[in-house]
């Protein structure tokens, strides 16, 4: 075990290297570029186990990963915003094909205009694809989540691709200390991939030909069941990691000071880390507040949300907006509670386009809710409170 101090992107590249993928196919895009560049460095130094394919677009990156994974390889890629959107078709494809691809998505706002700073609209827009989605708030969590993602994706009861998301620049280009286990220890935690279907001339199968309506729903149901299975496996994997390596970031969610909280703030990604400071400050003022940081957005932690709402009202902070409706977390939290809870739920949107949100802003939003000023969804960026 050693401690490495490096940027989120470089830590992601390191995790990818230690997971020993057979194939990486990727295309550069700000602010993911330093991941692919670091991998290229590893390749040049002979330190990278896999074949690195410099594809000519993100759609091709995911298509190449699909081909490689279908041929039995452990595959990895990384992208951001427009790259993620460009591969949207193939995200659906990978999940329906039940291929355990792991991808980093460095969150970045979507244009036009060109905006390289962070919000979570890009990955929120992929929540229907069938991919498992994780949001990280520290470089340690990035490292741990990527390796755990392979284990989760490749589990016989899951067989779904996983995307690990974290904020562009805030994490991707910021250095933090990270505890890094030895290769051998990682190998013990993460054995070689055993494909559950594969392209093999000794057993010729056709994947993806025409399927009639009567047969299609079972494919979808199996994916849903796989995500339900993932819900049960995620805590096991997190605890195994803690036992082996000592680091832990919660399971489907991470709870912070929730036990006696009257109000719990729910948010994700970098705002999840920033919120801890806000909670600390508010606690100093005697306010009974806590934080539930959403790590897994898919599968959505409905049971955890219900549990949080037993004794607390919920303040939801989204760094994304589904235009024409609300922030995705706000909608899905309320949906989880429907008919089962009369907890109040307040919705705040802040940090779109990478507009800065500090713990002071978060305190303002929490106080706004606590002080009974909430009437409807608050767009904090537009001077909502």
């Amino acid at each position, binding site marked *: 075990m050693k401690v490495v101090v490096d940027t989120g992107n470089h830590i992601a590249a390191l995790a990818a290297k230690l997971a020993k993928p*057979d*194939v990486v*196919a990727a295309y550069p895009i700000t602010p993911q570029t330093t991941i692919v560049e670091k991998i290229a460095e590893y390749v040049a130094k002979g330190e990278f186990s*896999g*074949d690195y*394919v*410099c*594809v*000519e*677009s993100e*759609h*091709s*990156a995911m*298509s*190449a*990963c*699909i*081909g*490689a*994974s*279908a*041929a*039995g*390889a452990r*595959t990895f890629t990384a992208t951001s915003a427009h790259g993620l959107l460009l591969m949207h*078709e*193939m995200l659906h*494809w990978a999940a329906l094909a039940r291929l355990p691809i792991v991808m980093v998505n460095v969150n970045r706002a979507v244009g036009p205009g060109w905006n390289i700073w962070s919000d979570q609209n890009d990955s929120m827009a992929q929540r229907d694809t069938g991919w498992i989605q994780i949001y990280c708030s520290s470089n340690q969590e990035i490292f741990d989540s990527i390796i755990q993602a392979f284990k989760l994706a490749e589990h016989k009861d899951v067989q779904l691709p996983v995307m690990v998301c974290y904020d562009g620049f805030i994490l991707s280009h910021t250095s933090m200390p990270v505890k890094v286990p030895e290769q051998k220890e990682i190998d013990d935690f993460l054995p070689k991939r055993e494909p559950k279907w594969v*392209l*093999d*001339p000794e*057993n*010729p*199968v*056709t*994947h*993806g*030909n*025409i*399927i*009639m309506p009567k*047969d299609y729903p079972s494919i979808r149901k199996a994916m849903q069941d796989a995500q339900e299975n993932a819900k049960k496996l995620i805590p096991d994997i997190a605890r195994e990691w803690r036992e082996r390596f000592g680091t832990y970031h919660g399971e489907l969610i991470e709870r912070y000071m929730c036990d006696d909280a009257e109000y719990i703030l729910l948010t994700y990604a970098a705002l999840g880390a920033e919120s801890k400071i806000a909670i600390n400050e508010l606690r100093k003022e005697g306010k009974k507040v806590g934080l539930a940081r959403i790590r897994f957005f898919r599968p959505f932690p409905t049971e955890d949300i219900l549990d949080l709402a037993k004794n607390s009202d919920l303040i939801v902070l989204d760094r994304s907006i589904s235009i024409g409706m609300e922030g995705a977390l706000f909608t899905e939290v309320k949906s989880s509670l429907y008919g089962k809870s009369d907890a109040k739920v307040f919705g705040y949107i802040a940090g779109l386009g990478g507009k800065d949100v500090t713990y002071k802003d978060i305190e303002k939003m929490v106080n706004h809710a606590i002080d009974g000023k909430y009437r409807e969804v608050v767009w904090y960026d537009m001077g909502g409170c």
Partner: protein
Amino acid sequence: MALKDLPREEYLLPGSAACPGCPATIGLRTVLKALSKKTILVVPACCTAVIESWYPNSSFNVPLLNIAFEASGAAASGIVSALKQKGRDDINVVVWAGDGGTYDIGIQAMSGAFERGTDFIYICYNNQIYSNTGIQRSGATPYGAWTTTTVSGKGEFPKDMGAIVRAHRIPYVATACISYPEDLYNKVRKAKEIRGSKYIEVLTPCPPGWRFPMDRTVEMGRLAVETGVWPLYEYENEEMTFNGISRAIFEGKYKRKPVEDWLKLQGRFSHLFKPKRDEERIKRFEKFVDDMWERFRKEFG
């Protein structure tokens, strides 16, 4: 080599969803005999994706990955990479894509795969339309042809995909036609032994798409070559060799048949003949073919 030297084994099983008289299946049977068992096919959206028949059955007895329309070159790149890592680069990775998935929506992924020197064979079976979706024009559709989206006949000439692929400087670029099975078989066998990217474009005359009776598929392909509309060639290490009748045309030893011998047998060109003969458009087509052979002679003579 003769037809009797072709292997007996069938990798495309009878009883598929193909139209009667389908040229893609004629081509596939020959191509798969040349590739044999150790082959993985990548098939984008195209007629063949339907010809495979439906879940849970397949008419193909080789592993086959269906992939999105534009993605063949990229998916194949991924498979090649994975097999290399597993020490199985003895398996042929072959894209079998239509002209839509090659000339148009698929051109980027194919180009990228070639530029990376991907060790695979890209076979484009060209029926000069988006056939699977119901006969719409593609970048390969000939001048003057009716399609559902060029109702009074296409105003543009097709792309010279051979030239585009040759410009990638890959080790082997060839054209073929289902009407000449020995030639197609030999080209696939040759390609299979070469390391690097290989491209073979096979003319596949489509009865419903070109509007001719289903028993004349092979004849339509032959006439395309005899009129010089479709050249048969191999471009290997920047050296061009024409094959069969195409070589005779190139060397001036065979006067190619007039293009209208081919045009008038296809319903998709009927408006060039009825109600009135469209001399101007027929002449433009003829000139296009003349110019093509002139360019060949200038560049490779």
